[in-house]
């Protein structure tokens, strides 16, 4: 082999850092994180006797999951599932219907600023709190049962859909809106002809996705009294009835899978 280059002296090579280029910050950030980890791990207090006891229960739970008992509490399970599903349907429909005007109002490019500010604040409030916390408040106000759950999910849906819808509208192709405006169209016509076609497919996709999320959430807010399968699950855990709990979990998983499969199927057809 003939090399055209003069033989270079051995040059060392080290890989340049992937994320943080500055040596000082790299050491500070990684070091700080490591120190935090040590402290965090330190602060876990382990009760070994309790954990060893728990292993036995864990085994019983897994057995319960493998041999689920659908029959002995079937009435409760059915009631819980019906509540969950109806809550999901109602909250999705109502939530999405309310989201649309709020989403349009929250889009900076088509709404006047006072409307924009109000709508954005509604979105911020709805997104800041966990569903569970909202559910606690609604249960306190409206009493136990699926109605409080329905309100919770509707409220959460508004935050989710409005935000994404508003962001979408803000990103639409201005040229299309311009072209429609040039034909002398009014505000409603612009929304209808220039904005709607651009955001509609995404809106449908998001709505279906939200139905999914609502069902999943409907299975937990029952824990604080807002109806749905979560309440049934909570009761069965309190009774150490792991076979029923296993059955409920399996049902939840199956329903979520069905909802996900169904919504992705519909999304594909729509787009």
């Amino acid at each position: 082999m003939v090399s055209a280059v003069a033989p270079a002296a051995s040059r060392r090579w080290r890989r340049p850092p992937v994320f943080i280029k500055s040596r000082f910050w790299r050491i500070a950030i990684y070091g700080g994180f490591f120190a935090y980890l040590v402290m965090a791990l330190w602060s876990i207090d382990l009760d070994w006797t309790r954990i060893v006891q728990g292993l036995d229960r864990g085994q019983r739970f897994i057995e319960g999951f493998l041999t689920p008992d659908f029959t002995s509490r079937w009435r409760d399970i059915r009631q819980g599932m019906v509540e969950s599903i109806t809550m999901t349907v109602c909250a999705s429909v109502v939530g999405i219907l309310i989201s649309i005007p709020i989403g349009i109002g929250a889009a900076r490019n088509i709404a006047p600023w006072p409307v924009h500010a109000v709508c954005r604040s509604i979105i911020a409030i709805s997104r800041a709190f966990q569903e569970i916390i909202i559910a606690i408040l609604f249960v306190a106000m409206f009493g136990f049962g699926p109605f409080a759950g329905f309100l919770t999910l509707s409220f959460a849906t508004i935050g989710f859909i409005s935000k994404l819808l508003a962001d979408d509208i803000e990103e639409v192709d201005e040229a299309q809106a311009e072209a429609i405006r040039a034909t002398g169209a009014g505000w409603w016509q612009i929304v209808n002809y220039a904005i709607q076609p651009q955001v509609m497919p995404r809106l449908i996709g998001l709505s279906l996705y939200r139905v999914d999320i609502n069902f999943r959430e409907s299975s937990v807010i029952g824990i604080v009294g807002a109806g749905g399968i979560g309440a049934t699950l909570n009761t069965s855990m309190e009774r150490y009835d792991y076979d029923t709990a296993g059955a409920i979990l399996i049902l939840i998983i199956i329903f979520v899978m069905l909802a996900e499969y169904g919504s992705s199927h519909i999304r594909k057809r729509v787009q």
Partner: protein
Amino acid sequence: MLEVDSLEKRYKTGDMALRGVSFTVAKGQVVGLIGPSGAGKSSLIRCINRLVEPTGGAIRLNGLDLTKLSGGNLRQARRRIGMIFQEYALVERLTVMENVLSGRLGYVPFWRSFFRRFPQADVDKAFQLLDRVGLQDHVDKRADALSGGQRQRVGIARALEQDPELLLVDEPTASLDPKTSRQIMRLICEVCRERDLPAIINIHDVVLAQMFVDRIIGLRAGAVVFDGPPTDLTDTVLTEIYGEEDWHAMRKTREEDAADESETKAFEAERLAELV
């Protein structure tokens, strides 16, 4: 020396990509492989390093039958065969140096490659190659920060870093402008002569091929229809390879690209199945 002996490839879709292709390439010889899209050029060079599994025939590199290898032996054989790709195929988010050093992956144990602690000899060689291809100032840049021509130079350095006994080159200039294309072709041919390295260059541009290579093999529908020096490549021969066309105004068209893509798709599907 590379001997290809009645090589066949049939895809699972039933498409016959290669129908008994035979030829030998001597040490230091640069062969241009031409032919219309779908003639099996890509399949042929990928059969040689077994990125595509041949369904029949034999490939011998310096006496070793590559078609019989598997597992560790196949990897050892692959590291002796350098490959340069159409769209550069650099790992975009790694640095230029890491891309070049990845040519040593077949030689070093996993822990060394994982901690990027390559033997100093490998690093020296990589620096030399980067000097040779004119990228000494871009060592620690990320590959996606380079221009097309520069990326292809990294691709060349990576292939040479393997200390190859054979170079496979797949459409090295397809995504480059005419001037850069010539520079890259010249560079490839020069390094082959420097190292007495045999090479097979799969190339669309017949004029470019005639300018640089020692020998041309013309492929049509998976069979060799021409094998000889570039000077023998007359219009009659070209018509036999490509069909009727005005040869002096040849341009790569969009349709060709599309057809090429469909060929690529066919073996990509198979590649996916065997990956990792």
